[in-house]
């Protein structure tokens, strides 16, 4: 762990050989046993030969005489000492002989030591004991530097996580407030639009069926013609049928091609010439309806982004939440082949609704991307497995990995960092604009579980993998 140049390592090895091999000065410490007590006098300098020691610092004096095993020791862990590390260096060389830490063996261990009576070996040739131990001091300095560096970066990471959580929480509160305010207003607009359209349609029908017909054409318009297409058609009608620019534009929407035009009776076409505004009325209500649906969708998504009350519980079945998501999206998945490979999983500590949100957002995004790109034989594959991570300090070791992949277009390299940000969206086409919230909801939820998202994207396959820890260590907010 500590690398030092040979000019230090060679004399260090000599010191170890000369001073720390005397069988009379070797101690065996059983697991849980104490090497040094905090605040106790200690005239020895130790070298760990075998096993690991952990150093604790307690703020108050611990008065128990028999010190318990590591797990029962209360106090803050300061560092660990492994074979080839020195212990009590400062106390020994400062001549204070006073230990600042309580040092106990984690496992059966062995140490060698010198004390303040140990004479210098070969002083004529190698100098005083202090001079001979300079490499040890250098080693200790390097070890302490390393320890501080590690502590600082761990702390920075913790602060970063905390800041992100705080930002998410502020954003959540703000958006929940806005969503609540808008919800009722949007609901009124949405419902009343339907009422107005219904009433108007039947009212027009009672008076003039032709007007009602025009109104319905406008209200149910699904042509989604581009402005250029409408313009070209309208120009032709304007010229050939002697119509105003506005009326010909309406006719271009109703009859975007010659075949459709032929099916319309001349009386109706004449009617359009003077009464095209009924079509516009219908079309306005259609836009209003679509816009209010879109607004309700945003309000709903923002409410989810806001989070609200989450109730996380133990024993949640991830496979079931994946199946729920597929059920929920069954309409959207109608023309898409769905393959699932759900492995046997341990249950997790989670809120089933939140898991559902994660899966539906990712799957729904995949559907949109494939539909937009007109992917031939679109497919969504979902696999779930259990993962065991290496023993990383502070991190849980058991994860449930959920991979959602699709054979749609790849996500361009340059936007991969951005797709999890709120308001980033690639969907902008007429009224079909995306919310830009989907993946930011995923990010918020994933962060709150201490889970990770991996994204792999190529021309053949794009996959999101969520690694969800089965237990929670960060608390649940």
């Amino acid at each position, binding site marked *: 762990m500590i690398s030092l140049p040979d000019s230090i390592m060679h004399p260090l090895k000599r010191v170890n050989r000369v001073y720390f091999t005397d069988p009379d000065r070797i101690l065996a410490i059983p697991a849980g046993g104490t090497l040094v007590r905090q605040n106790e006098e200690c005239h020895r300098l130790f070298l760990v030969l075998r096993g690991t020691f952990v150093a604790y610092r307690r703020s108050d004096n611990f008065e128990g005489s028999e010190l318990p095993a590591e797990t029962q020791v209360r106090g803050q862990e300061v560092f660990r000492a492994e074979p080839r590390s020195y212990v009590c260096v400062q106390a020994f060389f400062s001549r204070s002989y006073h230990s600042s830490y309580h040092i106990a063996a984690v496992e059966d261990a062995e140490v060698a030591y010198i004390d303040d009576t140990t004479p210098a070996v070969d002083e004529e040739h190698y100098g005083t004991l202090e001079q001979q131990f300079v490499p040890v001091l250098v080693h200790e300095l390097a070890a302490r530097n390393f320890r501080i560096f590690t502590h600082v970066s761990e702390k920075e990471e913790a602060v970063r996580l905390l800041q992100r959580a705080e930002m998410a929480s502020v954003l959540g509160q703000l958006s929940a407030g806005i969503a609540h305010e808008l919800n009722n207003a949007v609901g009124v607009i949405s419902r009343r639009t339907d009422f107005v359209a219904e009433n108007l349609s039947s009212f027009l029908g009672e008076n003039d069926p032709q007007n009602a017909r025009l109104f319905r054409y406008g209200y149910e318009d699904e042509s989604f013609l*581009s*402005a*250029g297409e409408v313009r070209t058609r309208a120009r032709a009608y304007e010229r050939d049928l002697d119509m105003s*620019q*506005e009326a010909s534009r309406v006719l271009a929407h109703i009859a975007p091609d010659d075949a459709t035009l032929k099916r319309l009776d001349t009386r109706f076409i004449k009617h359009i010439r003077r009464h095209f505004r009924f079509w516009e009325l219908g079309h306005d209500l259609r*836009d209003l309806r679509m*816009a209010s649906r879109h607004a309700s969708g945003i309000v709903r998504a923002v409410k989810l982004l806001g989070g609200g009350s989450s109730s996380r519980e133990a024993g949640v079945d991830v496979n079931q939440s994946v199946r729920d998501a597929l059920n929920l999206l069954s309409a959207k998945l109608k023309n898409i082949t769905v393959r699932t490979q759900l492995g046997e999983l341990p249950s997790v500590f989670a809120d089933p609704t939140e898991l559902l949100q994660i899966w539906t957002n990712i799957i729904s995004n995949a559907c949109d991307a494939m539909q937009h790109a007109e992917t031939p034989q679109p497919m969504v594959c979902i696999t779930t497995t259990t993962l065991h991570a290496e023993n990383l300090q502070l991190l849980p070791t058991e994860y449930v990995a959920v991979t959602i992949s699709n054979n749609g277009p790849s996500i361009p390299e340059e936007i991969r960092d951005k797709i999890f940000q709120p308001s980033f969206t690639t969907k902008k086409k007429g*009224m079909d604009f995306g919310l830009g919230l989907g993946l930011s909801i995923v990010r918020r939820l994933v962060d709150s579980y201490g889970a990770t998202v991996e994204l792999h994207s190529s021309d053949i396959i794009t996959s999101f993998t969520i690694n969800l820890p089965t237990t929670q260590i960060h608390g649940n907010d």
Partner: protein
Amino acid sequence: METINIICVDDQPEVLDSVLRDLRPLSPLIRLEEASGTEDCLRLLEQIDEDGGHVAVLITDQVMPGNTGTDLLAKVTGDARFSHTRKILLTGQATHADTINAINEGRLDNYVEKPWEPEKLLNMVKRLLTLYIMEAGIDYKPYMSILDNATLFSKLR
């Protein structure tokens, strides 16, 4: 009588619809045209030019798939056939830099933020239309009913 066009460019059909409707008081003296993007607008400009028509005012969105509104304005500004054309940027998303570019490279006349006030937009377009008609040397009399009087008088004085 000359054919005078006002063009609105936006990738969202419902925005185009609204602008065209807000400007309808100018019809039928003025032709109101729509384009779904910069490419579509350039095609439309060619067609209008072929038919010998004028483009008095060009109203464009900034953020559209493909080229931006600023790109379009710069192109039109560099085209001698449309040297008198007046320009409005109608947008909700232009950055500071976009706006500076639109003014410097695209000789922008007005900047309107979405959502716009219909009456303000109509009056603005009327003023620009009046300027165009006077500067392009078109007989203004047939258009009196839709021109901006103050602008007209200041130009006539």
